[in-house]
């Protein structure tokens, strides 16, 4: 049993994160298809169906996370989705195909596959685990709602910043020659 503020804040942050990920995928669906094809985990014919269902699944999970009745199940769904992404990345790392675009941070932030991306997925999955914990019964006041929104905003901003740092890292490595 956790305090509801913690759980709801985690769900809100996750919902915002998934919604932004889905919007990246839907806005540049063609590019996303290309990225999924480059992963070579699916036959080419299945790729458009897979990308559409991934984007819709992210949207659906984002909505379900905000519904009190569904959020526990949705959080488990997010853990599964992150595990799926991580296994696709892990498989290509194992194949040694490090030069394909991760597709992690939307279009325009291409970055090669690296083990650190698995860590990123793990952190998101841990956040989803936090959102899946059953919450204690407690009346929520205005301050609780404020904390939920503030924490969600901070989590999202940090997520964007970390994504940016991860995308910059290979470019910096190229500059310094290491």
């Amino acid at each position: 049993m956790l305090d509801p503020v913690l759980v709801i804040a985690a769900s809100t942050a996750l919902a915002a994160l998934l919604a932004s990920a889905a919007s990246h995928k839907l806005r540049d669906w063609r590019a996303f298809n290309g990225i999924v094809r480059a992963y070579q985990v699916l036959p080419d014919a299945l790729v458009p169906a897979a990308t559409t269902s991934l984007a819709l699944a992210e949207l659906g999970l984002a909505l379900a996370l905000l519904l009190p009745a569904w959020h526990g199940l949705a959080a488990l769904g997010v853990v599964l989705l992150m595990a799926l992404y991580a296994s696709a990345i892990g498989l290509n790392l194992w194949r040694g195909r490090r030069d394909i675009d991760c597709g992690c941070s939307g279009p325009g932030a291409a970055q090669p596959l690296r083990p650190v991306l698995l860590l990123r997925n793990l952190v998101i999955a841990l956040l989803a685990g936090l959102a899946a914990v059953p919450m204690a019964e407690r009346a929520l006041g205005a301050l609780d709602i404020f904390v939920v929104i503030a924490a969600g905003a901070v989590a999202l901003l940090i997520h964007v910043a970390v994504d940016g740092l991860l995308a910059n890292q290979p470019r910096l490595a190229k500059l310094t020659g290491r």
Partner: protein
Amino acid sequence: MQLLIASNILLWLLLIAVAFTVMALVRQIGVLHSRIAPAGALMVDKGVTVNDPAPQVTAADRHGRPVNIGYRAERSQLLFFLAPGCPVCKSLLPAVKSIAKDNSGELDVIYVSDGDFTEQQALIEANGLQQATYVVGPEIGMTYQIGKLPYAVLIDQAGTLRAKGLVNSREHLDSLFETVHLGSATLQHYLHGEHKHDHAHDHAHPHSAQH
């Protein structure tokens, strides 16, 4: 209690502000990374010295017509060294073609390649180079000591080698012309302050090769 709540709200607001600042900083670093001055065309080998007369060599183009390189002529020459098996060379061909078109009055672009003739033919057809001067043979590359591809050499009307370098992007190609204006052997020399001033007449202040 009242004080604690107020301080907590204030801390949250400040934390949001800090997180926002960090995100903005990361974004700016990303923009800087994509805008960092392109490295000029690299001169990786010794070969022929820039601002010396270019070695004179005559080779037959793919139709058997003789092509004179390094002689005094009416037009400057841009030698573009490529190979069918070099993807970067192919990605640069549109840029080379547009340079040839933009400077058709004063510049002859000569494509120099070597290797299997059917592959050359496929490359020529795929890139619409039927009308271009296209030399297949090792003579020119050996004379100019080309070790890496894609490589470009710029020779002026007097037969002087003006600029040369390994070119991996349109910016690298442009940098060859830029260095001629700046009077330096390569952009690297220029950036490191080793430039001479004898050719800098039409540039009151130097500008970078970014376009």
